[in-house]
């Protein structure tokens, strides 16, 4: 290779050797500077200095050893070697870019049958609404977060880390750290963590600790850490025939659990006795199966809550409900009671006293029932009464009434004659269907705001026996979400939970011996036969 004249310096062997040494030092300085820059940002000045020095040394290397470099590049090995280096580096760069793009523009889909790793709508809402960074510190001994747990992957720490990872993938403002309290007692002490497992959600000066490893607990702690209060759903006791804590078939403990899962606080209130009026914390009240007439003072307290404080209420009724509720709901444009709703076409187990609402019998126009219609969900109401909009609406400017669920068009009616519902036939005095079983009322208030009421002509659908079946849970929770103005949370809930199995001891023994011994030995035996034949 012909060299430019300016580079034709006299050849001094020791300079060439020095150049090579400087080249090696330049390479080391470059690597050290790069590592220092990445690992110790505090020493940024030093690292940049090293990188700069490596550049200078590289120039000196080229200056002193230019002949050797030029000679090497002039050979076949040099040219091909350089070519290979450039091609491999280019491919490395392409791989790097592809992964960078893949990391930042990923598509992620939970394919499990039960959507086990899909965050619920309340969590998604909380994460999407984050305004400030939140960091979760998960305090677990290292053995509980080992990526290779010898006893399976179901240890609590592993599950918690997985859950927190889902949170961090949803929001850029959410991050988490798994802390081994034995190795990092300082961080544990900072948050006053004295028991494990514990997860602390920290945002600015606020922090919230939870010891329960579940999505509901994490989200509740997250909301508290960012200063949000959980909304309270109040069950009216005394008036209601159902209790939020009753775990029997007729009780509402499942519904209460589901509300807690959606990050509501559930409490019971008793008007006029322990509670003077509906407490301020109540975002909505639930009256399930009214068992007796409202007293004047109770009616006044409910009016004060709904009208003056723009409250909301969910009424779950029964055919034999007291008359005072019929007149109370009429004031809000809802016509309730008057008989038993029977359906000879759309019904459960051929029982006309159990009308079932097919997907298209749910009002697709209303936010509560639209998901039920869209996702082909069925709801059913054992022994229900009517809960319909008053027709015509006496105050259309003030009250917006929407029928949510109707019985079938053919052969459904409101049995008013007092016949045995099981065998009754539609008579001339009965009201022909379709009959509204659920109605929503939105009452405008001056100067602004509104009261919200949902009335369902049945309370059994949300009892423990029927709550988890079909779309009943969704109707109940969607109603509460609408009443508490949490429309964004309205959805269809996938029944979650991993699929467990309960092998017997004999089955376990078979699993162990066949997996660890019999099967591998059989393969090894085939190998031995192959070896024997080839021998």
């Amino acid at each position: 290779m012909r060299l430019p004249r300016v580079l034709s310096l006299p050849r001094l062997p020791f300079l060439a050797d020095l150049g090579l040494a400087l080249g090696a030092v330049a390479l080391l300085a470059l690597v050290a500077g790069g590592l220092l820059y990445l690992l110790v940002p505090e020493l940024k000045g030093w690292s940049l200095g090293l990188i700069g020095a490596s550049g200078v040394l590289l120039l000196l290397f080229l200056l002193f050893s230019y002949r050797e470099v030029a000679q090497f590049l002039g050979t076949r090995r040099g040219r091909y070697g350089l070519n290979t280096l450039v091609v491999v580096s280019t491919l490395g760069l392409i791989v790097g870019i592809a992964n960078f793009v893949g990391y930042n523009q990923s598509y992620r889909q939970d394919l499990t049958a039960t959507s086990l790793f899909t965050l619920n709508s309340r969590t998604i809402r909380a994460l999407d609404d984050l305004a400030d960074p939140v960091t979760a510190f998960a305090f677990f001994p290292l053995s509980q977060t080992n990526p290779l747990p010898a006893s399976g992957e179901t240890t609590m720490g592993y599950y918690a880390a997985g859950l927190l990872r889902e949170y961090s993938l949803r929001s850029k403002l959410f991050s988490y750290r798994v802390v081994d309290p034995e190795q990092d007692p300082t961080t544990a002490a900072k948050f006053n963590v004295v028991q494990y497992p514990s997860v602390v959600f920290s945002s600015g000066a606020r922090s919230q600790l939870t010891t329960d490893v579940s999505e509901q607990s994490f989200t509740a702690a997250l909301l508290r850490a960012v200063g949000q209060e959980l909304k309270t759903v109040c069950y009216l006791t005394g008036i209601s025939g159902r209790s939020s804590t009753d775990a029997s078939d007729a009780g509402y403990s499942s519904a209460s659990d589901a509300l807690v899962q959606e990050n509501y606080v559930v409490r019971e209130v008793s008007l006029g006795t322990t509670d003077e009026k509906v407490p301020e914390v109540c975002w909505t009240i639930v009256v399930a199966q009214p068992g007796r007439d409202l007293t004047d003072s109770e009616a006044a307290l409910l009016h004060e809550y709904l009208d003056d404080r723009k409250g909301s209420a969910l009424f779950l009724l029964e055919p034999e409900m007291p008359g005072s509720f019929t007149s109370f709901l009429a004031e809000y444009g809802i016509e309730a009671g008057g008989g038993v709703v029977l359906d000879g076409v759309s019904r459960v187990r051929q029982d006309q006293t159990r009308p079932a609402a097919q997907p298209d019998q749910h009002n697709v126009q209303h936010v509560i029932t639209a998901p039920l219609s869209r996702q082909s969900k069925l709801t059913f109401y054992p022994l229900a009464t009517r809960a319909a909009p008053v027709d015509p609406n006496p105050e259309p400017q003030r009250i917006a009434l929407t029928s949510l669920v109707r019985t079938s068009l053919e052969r459904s009616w409101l049995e008013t004659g007092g016949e045995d519902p099981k065998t009754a036939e539609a008579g001339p005095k009965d009201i022909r269907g379709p009959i509204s079983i659920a109605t929503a009322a939105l009452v405008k208030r001056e100067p602004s705001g509104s009261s919200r009421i949902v009335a369902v002509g049945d309370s059994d659908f949300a009892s423990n026996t029927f709550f988890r079946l079909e779309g009943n849970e969704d109707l109940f929770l969607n109603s509460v979400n609408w009443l508490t103005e949490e429309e964004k949370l309205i959805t269809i809930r996938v029944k979650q939970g991993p699929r467990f199995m309960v092998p017997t001891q004999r089955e376990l023994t078979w699993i162990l011996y066949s997996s660890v011994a019999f099967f591998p030995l059989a393969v090894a035996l085939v190998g031995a036969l192959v070896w024997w034949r080839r021998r």
Partner: protein
Amino acid sequence: MNLRAIGIIAGKEVRSYFGSPMAYIVMAVFLAFSGFFFASSMSQPFPEATVRGFLFPGALALLLLAPVLTMRLLAEEQKMGTLELLLTAPVRDSEIVLGKFLASFIMVAVTLALTLYFPFLLFLFGGDPDLVPILTGYLVLLLVGAMAVSVGIFGSALTSNQIVAAVLSTGLLMVLWLANLTSNLAGGSEIAWKTAVDYLAISGHMQDLAFGILNTTDLVYFVTVIAFFLFVTIRVLETRRWR
């Protein structure tokens, strides 16, 4: 690219694998190792009807055993002097590498196919397992296996010593497996390099698929790393023409 040539090379290597006891030993060891972890996960108080219990240990076993399968592929050819013959044959370097890669991958796939006995047990004992996480679990094991094989062939191309080739490949794979642990030990959580080092870790890219979640980030990672090592192996083989 001549697919027939790739097929012929792969076929020869597969026959060679099944004609020697080594493949069966590797398969038996892998099965016993995986079986132990599967059985352990089943002996929990309320075991989940899933094969996840053996996926991570199984992947680790693949990373350790795949270099044993691949170590001789090119190193032996170099040592015996047959590589020169192969390089002068009317086949491209890429076809040689892909043929040998395919053969080793078939071995890995057969080994994994034998572990289908585990999900069979889940169905047999009435576990009603969710099929999707099982399928995605096997997909990720196949991807890890393909990656281990591509790194193994790369190691085998670098040297004529089989032991050195296996150690080199295993070392490289262990660096990729333990990358996130290294960054955890270093501490800190919001440094870009930590994210990058964590990203390199194989185990981090297994988690979603092991749980039945499809994540394109993981697919991009596995496919590009496999392609990268295969390409570099082809270039390393090419250097023999001008070194």
